[in-house]
């Protein structure tokens, strides 16, 4: 029976790869024949990706982009965790601050870019601040929701075992909220990347976003597609890394859920 299961999974994997191969094949063909204007063949794009990653562009554009995104993401994420847990634990604040927070969160961050540029110039600080703001919101809201939905019985158990308020926060509320925080961090990852790209397309002379825009302006199609592909790879890589970290930190949550779903 298990052999059948493995076979089925292998076949499914092959089906996926096959679809991928078909898509790539069509792309290559369309590019070669020139039937779609401005579309370079996949092979050229792949070559360009390699050029970018093995050349000066790596240190000029790719790594700074990654650095900014990571810095903003981590700072925003940590700030969000802290504020969210505090907001969720001291629930009295909630009805007072909720509408204001929801409004602030609803402001689409790219719209702040012109003002940010005017205030801070086209600097790294400006870009990282924007990413911090973007990563902050999903984390703070999820952390708050998670903290509020911690089963009060768990806190009772802790207090019955002699825990102080601070200990209850550290030993019970924090681990119980972590699954929610991770959900927020996952959303924040996507937002951080989007804001990184946007901030590099406006008032910038370096970065992957800049590279994409610049290539488009110069009609260097392969380079443009290559930069997009690299951005996709970055996004994919980050989310893989995120999954690994999440699995290791809250393995108990997934295993428990897995059992419950059975």
């Amino acid at each position, binding site marked *: 029976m298990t052999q059948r299961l493995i076979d089925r999974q292998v076949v499914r994997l092959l089906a996926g790869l096959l679809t991928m191969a078909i898509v790539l094949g069509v792309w290559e063909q369309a590019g070669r024949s020139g039937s779609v204007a401005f579309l370079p063949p996949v092979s050229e794009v792949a070559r360009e990706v390699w050029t970018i990653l093995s050349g000066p562009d790596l240190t000029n554009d790719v790594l700074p982009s990654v650095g900014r995104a990571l810095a903003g993401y981590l700072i925003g994420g940590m700030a969000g965790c802290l504020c969210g847990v505090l907001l969720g634990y001291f629930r009295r604040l909630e009805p007072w601050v909720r509408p204001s927070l929801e409004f602030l969160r609803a402001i689409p961050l790219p719209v702040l870019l012109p003002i940010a540029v005017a205030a801070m110039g086209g600097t790294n600080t400006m870009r990282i601040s924007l990413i911090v703001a973007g990563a902050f919101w999903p984390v703070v809201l999820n952390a708050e929701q998670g903290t509020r939905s911690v089963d009060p019985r768990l806190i009772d158990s802790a207090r019955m075992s002699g825990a102080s308020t601070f200990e209850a926060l550290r030993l019970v509320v924090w681990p119980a909220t972590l699954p929610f925080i991770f959900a927020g961090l996952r959303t924040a990852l996507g937002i951080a990347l*989007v804001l990184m790209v946007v901030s590099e397309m406006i008032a910038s002379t370096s970065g992957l976003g800049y590279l994409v825009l610049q290539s488009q302006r110069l009609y260097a199609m392969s380079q443009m597609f290559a930069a997009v592909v690299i951005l996709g790879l970055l996004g994919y890589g980050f*989310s893989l890394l995120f999954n690994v970290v999440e699995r290791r930190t809250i393995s108990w949550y997934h295993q428990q859920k897995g059992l419950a779903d059975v």
Partner: protein
Amino acid sequence: MTSTVQGGVSASRGAAESSRAATVLKGAVGALGLVLLWQLIVESGVLKGGLDVPVWEIASSIVTGFSGGELASAFLSTVQAWATGLAICVLLGSSAGIMIGLSRWADAATRIVVDFVRPIPSVALVPVVVVFFGIGIKVQVILVVLASVWPVLFNARYGVQNIDPRWIEESQLMGLGRLAVIRRVILPGALPSILTGVRTAASIAIIVAVAAELIVGSPGLGYFVNLMQQAVRPADAYAGIVVAGMFGYVVHLGLGWLERRIVGWQLASTEGRL
């Protein structure tokens, strides 16, 4: 005994309404606090270069902007792009999501391609789309769709896969054919999940529409704010930002209300199950 119960019910309804009014009031006070905070920041002189615009100037800019000013048309352009893109997302995303959810083969076949396309930050595709489709509202719509279809699709798939299999069994026992099962059981069953996805998609759509306007220069709030800042009209720029925020807030509230109305029963029964 009965009279106290009845008295209790009407008393409780009155009390519930007054507590809701209290919540709204508290929120309003909090919002006022936010406005005051802004004023404080302005007064403190931290913002330089004409960026310290007091609250009343922003407010008056919004008012004039909407009574026949440029703000109104910019706002409408953004909303139009957003709404069109979102509508397409919902149709495309939910039908694709349901199909993938129902068919293991479709899921497996598309899995790898989707996993590679999805992580590309949608705004990175703005220049690509411009190359193929030029400038104009089409660009924004296409970008909105590219970015926002994913939450709808994945939530639809998740919703379909997590329908209580007993419901499907029972309806099959009652003699429903496959198509009827989809229409009567699977669609309503996946609806709460889809709505959650639409909520996420709606907020992503605003971000992407505005970003596209900024980068490309197509008409809309993004372009408006950029223009105002470059024309050194900071009050108008802030006005655009506030309007964008209010729009997002209203959409969030509205979809939340819709979710609660349409799906209230679903949430209740799920809570019992969990």
